[in-house]
């Protein structure tokens, strides 16, 4: 890879800046179009409507939820009551699910990102036996449907006796082939060979070089991969659904679904839709915060991914 092309590839990771051409003003800051904005706003409404609905309905008591119009507030502002009820229902199991989710996310995202950084760096900067086969297998695995894989994983983990333990959810989340791919592309651009050579001449070992020189340079890609893993593990539904039977190990997604089924099974359970809705809101708040505060990294991750071809 030539140095010019690698510089062009790194560009999306920096804060994008448009050249402010003075001659061709209509290109850099054209006239705003109300019509185009309005059409786009319709799509924005489609995107936000369910979330607006969720926020409004988490402020309603169960009685108000059943009786009032979906996008109107109820007679009582019951958000705090609902939150208290979510945390105390079934002996406060919601806090346990929250804790489980945090553990799965922290360990899963942490380990998978670290392994992806190690592997991606090695692919970009080291030569080793079987590199091609390794690369093709890992890249090929990106297109293996996750669910097609989860059933075989379950059958194998059942043999090993680790289903219904946190390991059954954690171990598959340690592997992130797409993360490895991003790290590989990023290492190739962001870690200068000269720097590594200089360190080698100074007698530094390969692991020390990785930890003190390469890893800090990979920081932007690390945040990106962490963020993608965070969302995918936080949102994971199928894997914990098949692996876990004990509610004490459930993550939030499975727990909420269980509450939802509790309310809807044939009328004999008390309806707890207010709890289902409020717990859904509580579940997405950390995601929305992570997402809004780290936007730059989403953008750059997707930019790197799009260069794939």
């Amino acid at each position, binding site marked *: 890879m030539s140095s010019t092309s690698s510089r062009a590839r790194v560009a999306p990771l920096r804060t994008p800046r448009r050249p402010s051409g003075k001659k061709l003003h209509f290109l850099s800051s054209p006239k705003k179009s109300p019509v185009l904005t309005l059409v786009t706003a319709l799509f924005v409404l489609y995107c936000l409507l369910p979330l607006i609905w969720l926020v409004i309905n988490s402020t309603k008591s169960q009685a108000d939820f059943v009786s009032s119009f979906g996008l109107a507030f109820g007679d009582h502002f019951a958000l705090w009551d609902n939150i208290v009820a979510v945390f105390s229902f079934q002996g406060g199991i919601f806090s346990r699910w929250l804790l489980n989710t945090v553990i799965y996310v922290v360990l899963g995202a942490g380990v998978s990102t670290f392994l992806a950084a190690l592997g991606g760096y090695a692919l970009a900067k080291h030569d*080793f036996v079987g590199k091609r086969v390794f690369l093709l297998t890992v890249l090929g695995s990106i297109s293996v449907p996750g669910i097609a894989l989860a059933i075989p994983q379950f059958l194998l983990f059942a043999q090993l006796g680790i289903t219904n333990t946190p390991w059954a959810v954690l171990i598959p989340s340690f592997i992130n082939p797409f993360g490895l791919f991003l790290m590989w592309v990023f290492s190739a651009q962001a870690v200068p060979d000269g720097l590594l050579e200089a360190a080698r001449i100074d007698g530094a070992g390969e692991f020390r070089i990785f930890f003190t020189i390469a890893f800090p340079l990979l920081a932007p890609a690390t945040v990106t991969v962490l963020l993608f893993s965070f969302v995918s593990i936080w949102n994971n539904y199928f894997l914990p659904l*098949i692996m876990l039977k004990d509610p004490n190990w459930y993550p939030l997604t499975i727990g909420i679904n269980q509450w939802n089924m509790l309310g809807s099974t044939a009328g004999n359970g008390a309806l707890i839709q207010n709890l289902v809705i409020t717990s859904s809101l509580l579940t997405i708040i950390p995601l929305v915060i992570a997402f809004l505060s780290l936007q730059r990294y989403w953008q750059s991750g997707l930019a790197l991914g799009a260069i794939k071809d």
Partner: protein
Amino acid sequence: MNLSKRRTAGLAFIAPFSVLFVLVFIIPIAYSAYLSLFQNRLIGGNSFVWFDNYAKLFRDPQFWDGAIRVVSFTAVQVPIMLLSAIALALAIDSLRLYGTRFIRIAVFLPYAIPAIVATLMWGFLLGIRYGLIGSLNNALGTSFNPFTPETTMISIGVMVTWAFTGYNMLIFYAALRAVPRELYEAAAIDGANEWTIVRSIKLPALRGSLVVTIIFSIIGTLQLFNEPKILTSLVSNSGITSYYTPNIYAYNLAFTGSQQGYAAALALVMAVFTIAIAYIVQIKGMKNVFDK
């Protein structure tokens, strides 16, 4: 000497990933290939049946019902979603929108929402008991129901499009941002108007990302599971069967029917089918690039 030491270092770097990769990807696939050659029968227990499960699968009307459903869903939903994503990316990149930043965030936001929460929200919103459609029906005196056997798939399409359009839009948008601005300026000096720039510079620039997004969208829709699975406990008479999609069928075979060999065969066939489609798209997409 130094070189061979570095080769070992490279191997050491990929070793942890490789070991787990073998455990999580390679062994499960090999194990399920092995399992798919067995059948659990009432008489005789677990017995080796060669490729009986595969033969049975291709004659199984329930499998075909689900497979045809997800393939038709893919054929309709993926183009709608990707065309919307391209239109949004072009609109944002045109710099002609008010509140560009807000629009970009709002459209991408659904991607961060878990499928369970998304399905619950849409299930309630579209449902006729508590939802907006119910209120609309009351107000207008109509009886439209988004969750009948005929309409459920459309409602699922609304949910999936909602969740992933923004994700694809950002990929397209990133590709547009990678186009050097000088190119537009040069074209403008040559007298090209905005539509010409879109047609002859921007759309061709999206080709590579289009291949990637098509592949990932197809992989996603062919393994449709979460939305229909969650909907079964949310709305009644929606027409969602135990074999509604191949993945739901495989799940039910493995976990309620204890026909694990058969489920393994199904999962493998779907995986091979998906990978084949992904490769065809890739080869066709890349060929077009070379033709140009």
